[in-house]
């Protein structure tokens, strides 16, 4: 039925912006903690205080305003540990994403621009990496390289680079065929110049969107590995590690496990919300696959 297409006519309603304000605010808080946790923390996150052991958060009966989110079995302030944990998680996510992104972009550009055998080889490599379940790769890499913050960053970068490579390669392919590139070639620009001046900027948009969405994924990956004891090691603090620590006290101190986990969930939600918004506005062609 060829009825008039009324898609453009919306029912009369006040137009609402689709920007995820609350999510963005939370992300901003986390980023602030990531940058300046040592300055903002009310207590030293590793300093034990045996007078104030296992205090519940301030809204509970035994809680106090001094320790807003309570203390753990050694009397360490939970809020401070969460702030430091934010630094670790976000730093890991950021650095790992930058590494994965750089490596992936470089390979993606090489493959996409060069074409032919190089491209084919690259695609085989990318497909293989993407076919391997990332947890297995992460575990195998941890088994070889050992645990610890630095190694975790390498592990995460190695499991993530392939997605950037594939995205960048397909973007390069689509940009390569556009007229303005031919124009650049004809006017005598060198290959590198073409890549840097024309191709890269067009590709960066979708890469940035993927990166934001990736932050959520890497937070989960890092905290999972840390929870398993294969990630961040003490005295470094990680939300995942806090959950593993607090596990033994579940019966008496629910906040030790509930709060760090809640922060993980909220961080993932917020970064995903911001990432989805960015995808809607900066990647209308939909080159970036939805983050899982």
């Amino acid at each position, binding site marked *: *039925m060829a009825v008039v297409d009324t898609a453009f006519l919306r029912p009369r309603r006040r137009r609402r912006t689709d920007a995820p304000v609350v999510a963005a605010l939370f992300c901003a808080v986390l980023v602030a903690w990531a940058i300046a946790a040592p300055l903002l923390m009310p207590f030293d996150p590793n300093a034990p205080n045996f007078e104030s052991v296992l205090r519940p958060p301030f809204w509970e009966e035994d809680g106090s305003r001094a320790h807003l989110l309570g203390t753990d079995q050694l009397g360490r302030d939970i809020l401070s540990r969460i702030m430091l944990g934010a630094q670790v998680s976000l730093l890991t996510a950021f650095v790992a994403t930058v590494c994965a992104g750089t490596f992936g972009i470089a390979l993606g550009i090489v493959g996409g621009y060069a074409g032919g055998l190089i491209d084919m080889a690259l695609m*085989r490599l990318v*497909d*293989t990496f993407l*076919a*391997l*379940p*990332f*947890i*297995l*790769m992460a*575990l*195998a*890499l*941890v*088994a*070889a*390289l*050992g645990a610890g913050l630095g190694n975790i960053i390498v592990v995460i970068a190695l499991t993530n680079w392939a997605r950037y490579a594939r995205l960048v390669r397909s973007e390069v392919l689509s940009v390569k065929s556009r007229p303005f590139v031919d124009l650049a070639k004809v006017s005598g620009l060198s290959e590198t110049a073409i890549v840097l001046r024309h191709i890269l900027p067009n590709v960066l948009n979708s890469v940035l969107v993927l990166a934001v969405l990736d932050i*959520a994924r890497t937070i*989960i*990956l890092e*905290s*999972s590995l840390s*929870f*398993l*004891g*294969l990630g961040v090691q003490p005295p470094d603090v990680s939300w*995942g590690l806090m*959950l593993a620590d607090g*596990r033994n006290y*579940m*019966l008496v101190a*629910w906040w030790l*496990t*509930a709060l*760090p*986990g*809640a922060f*993980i*969930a*909220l961080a*993932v*939600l917020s970064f*995903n919300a911001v990432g989805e918004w960015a995808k809607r506005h900066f990647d209308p062609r939909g080159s970036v696959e939805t983050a*899982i």
Partner: protein
Amino acid sequence: MASYLLKRFLQVLVTLALLTLLIFVLARLSGDPAPLVMPSEATAADYEFFRRQYGLDQPFHLQYLTFLRNVLVGDFGASFRYNVAAIEVVGTALPATLQLAAASLLTAILIGVPLGIVGATTKSPAVKLAIDSYSALGQAAPMFWVGLMLMMAFAVRLPWFPSSGRGTLAHLVLPVVTLAIYVSASVVKLTTANMQEAMRSDFVKMARLMGLPRRLILLKHCLRNASLPIITFLGLQLGALLSGAVVTERVFAWPGLGNVIVEAILNRDYPVIQAAVLVSGLTFMGINLAVDLLYRVFDPRVEAA
């Protein structure tokens, strides 16, 4: 169909070969395992014996070839930790993981699909918000946290279910619910989106014009069309499901493959690590292939040639 199968099979082989190389190289990279395994009183002669027994004194490529040959017959050597063949450790654990995964998937579909249908058809904004929230939270909350919270609530505070181990049906409940929450969250989101898209399609408009009953249109035409992409999606989700299974098994001490791998890493039990990673990889790719084939069977538009 045959050529497609062949192509996929070759892909799996290539990926597996790379995986074996990867774990082999990585294992050797991390240095000499002897000091970790041998008791402290061991002499130099004991170390030599150990190295020779495990072929660690051979040149690299020979070691790899030996390794490959053994892998093909399923011989990964004996576990450093337990005195059984590594492949046996893995073999005992695999069914447990498969059971967990299958039960979780089934539960997730049973929860997710109906919720997704409701999400697509409800007119109440409150209901829509609730379903959307479930979908968002379920995917964002880390599975180990969800598992711990469930354990705290239903095994520790309220002793309804056992908090660890495997044995009875009750043991299965909490781990399955943990995994199912995550998977069903994305099933809900996908089902809702696909149902909405199906409801807008031309053949549904035609069915409406013919005056067919609403429920029939919804549950026969919309659902069938909506569920195809879900099959592919679940295939894509396998990676996340696997990682979720690993942490869930650790949380609930479920004797599955994930638990085995983590234990092996903590114990530097290389034969078991290698066996476990390879078997997991193989299983993973096998399931992926099965999902692909399933899709091709269900969609008549895909050429069967």
